[in-house]
């Protein structure tokens, strides 16, 4: 195995923009106090309960958590695919809900969304050229077919589908999962987005393909200055892709820990984050046998329609203390060098 370890101190220091600081003006896309409630036959379910997020140009904000924690709902709200029940989404300091048609169209194009499943997100009856160039042609970004093909080829090369000529006239079923996901990225890129929201975009791919796709996305982030809202359940992926950025850990619709990636992953504080980090299977048999594991008190996520009082995590929390934990919900407050929502470890 080739060791290409980059020590933490040689990494570009997470500068001020990456520190979680709600209210800074340089964010392209901001969520403030966003709630999303879904009515169900068994009562209203609050999928997202008051979250604040900021996506900055050329930076990554990673949203991590288990399924059902509200990651995807938050992402969809951020992309304008769903209107929040409460709270606001603002793009370039303008509230999306208050935008007129023209501004809204701009927002729509500048914030692109990449789905998890590249098998479902490409139209099976359209060629790559047709899929990628649809937006270009629709919005008159190209004059004629020749120009459209050239622009599409450039986009495909940008996402490392080379030589582009081999892919232009292919149908989705003629390509592998990784190639399809690249096509989906090229399609998003055609809109010259300022923010890309990637919802588990690498989780359906083989490990071998995952890294090269992440590198492609990293290129867009570093060279084109695209800001990312990156949703994943895989902390190793989060760590790799968002090393210079931030991670926000969600549990049952709320953010429980939010800070710069090296801090959150290498020194997790919230017991939930600790459990997540320690649960990862590492490809190292010795490490796997010697590592400390956080033992949860319960394996299953509580029912969203019937949440426990106090801290949402307390029925599973190994650090549970009688007192505040089961009566008062801990607020997300600055503690240590990050934002934390925990009575036991917070506020230190």
């Amino acid at each position: 195995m080739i060791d290409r370890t980059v020590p933490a101190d040689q990494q570009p220091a997470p500068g001020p923009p990456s520190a979680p600081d709600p209210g800074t003006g340089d964010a392209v896309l901001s969520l403030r106090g966003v709630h999303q409630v879904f009515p169900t036959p068994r009562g209203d379910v609050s999928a997202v309960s008051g979250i604040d997020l900021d996506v900055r140009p050329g930076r990554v904000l990673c949203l991590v958590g288990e399924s059902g924690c509200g990651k995807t709902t938050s992402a969809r709200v951020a992309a304008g695919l769903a209107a929040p029940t409460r709270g606001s989404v603002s793009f370039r300091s303008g509230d999306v809900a208050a935008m007129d048609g023209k501004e809204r169209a701009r927002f729509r194009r500048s914030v692109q969304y990449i789905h998890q499943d590249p098998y479902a997100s490409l139209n099976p009856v359209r060629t790559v050229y047709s899929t990628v160039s649809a937006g270009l042609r629709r919005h008159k970004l190209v004059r004629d077919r020749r120009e459209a093909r050239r622009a599409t080829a450039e986009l495909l090369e940008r996402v490392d589908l080379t030589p582009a000529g081999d892919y232009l006239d292919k149908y989705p079923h003629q390509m592998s999962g990784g190639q399809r996901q690249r096509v989906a990225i090229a399609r998003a890129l055609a809109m010259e987005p300022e923010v890309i929201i990637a919802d588990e975009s690498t989780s359906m791919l083989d490990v071998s393909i995952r890294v090269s796709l992440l590198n492609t996305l990293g290129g867009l982030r570093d060279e084109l200055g695209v800001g990312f809202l990156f949703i994943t359940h895989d902390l190793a992926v989060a760590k790799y892709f968002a090393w210079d950025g931030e991670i926000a850990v969600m549990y049952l619709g709320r953010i429980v820990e939010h800070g710069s990636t090296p801090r959150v992953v290498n020194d997790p504080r919230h017991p939930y984050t600790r459990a997540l980090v320690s649960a990862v299977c590492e490809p190292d048999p010795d490490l796997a046998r010697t590592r400390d594991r956080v033992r949860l008190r319960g394996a299953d996520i509580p029912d969203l329609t019937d949440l426990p009082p106090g801290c949402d995590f307390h029925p599973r929390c190994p650090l549970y203390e009688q007192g505040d934990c089961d009566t008062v919900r801990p607020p997300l407050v600055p503690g240590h060098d990050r934002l934390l929502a925990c009575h036991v470890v917070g506020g230190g």
Partner: protein
Amino acid sequence: MTATTTAPAAGVWGAIWQGVTRSTSGFVGLCLVLSVLAFSFVGPFLVDSHNPTDVTSIWGPISAEHWLGTNHEGKDTFVQLVLGGREPIWVGFVAALITVAIAVVLGGVAGYVRGRVDHFLLQVTDITMTIPFIVLMLVIASFYRTASPLTVSLIIGLVTWPYLMRSIRAQVLTLKEREFVEAARIQDLGTARILFVEVLPNMAGYVFINFIIAVTNAIYAVVGMYLLGLLPSTADNWGLMIQQAWDNNAFLLPRAAPFLIAPMVMIMLFQIGLVTMTRSLEQALNPRLRDR
């Protein structure tokens, strides 16, 4: 894993071709359809379309001169059979085209746009469904003494679309939730383009199958109308032949049997051909059946 899934053939036409040729019954169906089409559309150029009346040979027997004998006016049955296919088949296709076009556009719009438009279109559909077809035809037949084939197909087309419209609407409802449609919306591609370029082509196979089913239905409808004498017509056609056989008590005369049976056999062959072809097409074009 990989080896268990079969890649769909490129494009709808490829899938259609594969569907009809890969199973024996589908291929036989295709051959039947093509033979009947050739018989009715190429045949007229090869026979003497004049087909004179010959009073000396009324209900003439099968002979070398008259392959299927002659009818009550002494006209050659075989020639009539050759000439009589064009109209019902033509009417069937045009009517099906109209039905499918209306159903696809209205079903697509209703399913995709939803809301008030959907509500309105469903009302129109319900009302159309309640129109009694036969009564309508009676009324029209009493107004117009000679209905052209085009008028007939227009009437059939305008009355039979609601059933297909409803199922297309239902399909669009599920298709529009698919991720590639959402991706197109994120690209701000516009409703019309998303509906007609992204959504509907995914139903091409389904629409094609329903088109063929609509053809068979329309042919039955038009033949039935001739048979009931609802459509006055002078041109040769299979429906009219059956009606004339009926009117002249052909079913009582063994010698007249060919005149009665031949058009029925032609209609049946064509319909059986279409139906078997459709069945194997359905397997090729419907992804849920394809994987079995």
